């Protein structure tokens, strides 16, 4: 039991996730829900202080709005880690967040009734 034991491939992540956030406390789910949309601000990032992961989040969001869960999917990082990075980026005013696209408002029933009534009166 020497060569086989010694010669295995390391498949674990080289950089541990708690290092990526530098031990930052994970923000609550309420702060960045999975459907919250994220986009970059016009602030020029100081790339010297940004980790490659934060830079890649900025790159991902530079084309428009991307949801938190999509960012996690693209970067391959755990959701909580993405939230921590987003919290840091938001603190430095490098990103904006928006509440998720609201679901369609239900139409006013009374108005529809009146329209129907009007149509009937006119054409029927």
């Amino acid at each position, binding site marked *: 039991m*020497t060569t086989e034991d010694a010669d*295995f491939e390391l498949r674990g*992540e080289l950089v*541990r996730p*708690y290092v990526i956030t530098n*031990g930052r406390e994970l923000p609550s789910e309420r702060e960045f829900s999975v459907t919250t949309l994220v986009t970059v601000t016009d602030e020029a990032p100081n790339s010297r202080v940004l980790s490659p992961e934060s830079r890649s989040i900025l*790159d991902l969001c530079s*084309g428009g*709005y991307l949801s938190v869960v999509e960012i996690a999917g693209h970067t391959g990082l755990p959701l909580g880690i993405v939230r921590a990075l987003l919290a840091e980026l938001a603190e430095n005013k490098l990103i904006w967040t928006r509440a998720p*696209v609201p679901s369609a408002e239900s139409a006013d029933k009374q108005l529809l009734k009146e329209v129907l009534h009007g149509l009937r009166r006119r054409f029927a």
Partner: protein
Amino acid sequence: MASYAQDPAFWSLAAVALGSVGLTVRVSLKAKRQEKGLTEKLAQAEAKAEEAAREVQEVTDGKISTVLKSAMQTLRLLAAEQQVKLDELQREYGGHKILQPLLEVNHANAQFARRALGIAVLCGGFSGRRKEPASVYDVIRSAQGQISQFDRVKIRDQSGFAVVPSAVDGVALAVAELLANAASYSPPGTTIEVNLQPVQRGLCIVIDDAGVGMSEEAKQRAAALFSGEYRPGLSELGNPPQFGFPVVAELARRFGFHTDVSTTSPWGGVRAIVRLPETLLTTERIERRSTLTVDAVPHSAPGEQPASERTVNGLPKRGARKAPIALVRTPRVDDRPTAPAEPATPAEPAEQDSRVTAARMAAFQQGTRTGRQPIVPSQEGQES
């Protein structure tokens, strides 16, 4: 008296007496000679005994190190397997509050793997290999993750260099031991700063702490270790054993980098320098380190252009990053249900498919957004 002289008994007695005197003299002379010989022999014997003891120690150390090496490599393998499981769990429960304790378990795993690999290295072994090079920055962050007070480490630079796959974990372990040393010999709460300094034919990793520094004697001992002049056996590591510097020295010898702790940091602590020769470095494009694929998400287009390999700062891109999909073109004037985002003009063949798809998606999403707006009568009729 004459009568005595004629007595044969007297002569025989006298002869015996003389003989015994002569014997005594001879014996004492001989004793002196023997004593001298004995002292020499004793010294020789002592030297031999010492040598034998050393040999026994070496043999024992050798035997122990064979056993230990094997055991530590197995532990390292188990730790690596555990880490893979933890990576999976962290992704699966990434949004759950269990992520925090999972990260703590991961941290314990990293420290455990470091110690196992360190002892294996001291026993002449090594275990685990990587397929891909990693940026020097990531190698340092890997080292950072292996010490207990990792959040005190600040890495000030990122470099365009990567470490060749075979040396990634060796260099990471050496840096981890130096970081651990820096952390334990400086007050808690102080920063351990890491800087990178490109040099002729290589790159230096500079680790500064704000501790009390090392005594001259300790510096000399470290220099003897790092020059390879002194290679302590397992039984010479002290009690409690000091693994750090011997592990670094052994790794430096094996991978061919240089280590120095003789200078003082700007804050009066130790400045540790690891100089990586160019044989350990590469500028090869660094592949995405994540093993998770995002293929389940439809990519914008099959013919998308490859990302440039360098960022504006000359840093290698992590690569394999797919262009974001389902993007809405940033609506500057947000909530007005006016015309959809400008369609991609056909005059831009270079930006092709992904842009077109993105624009279509944008138009689509803008459309649904428009449909979801509360009705504003004054705007009706202006469309199309």
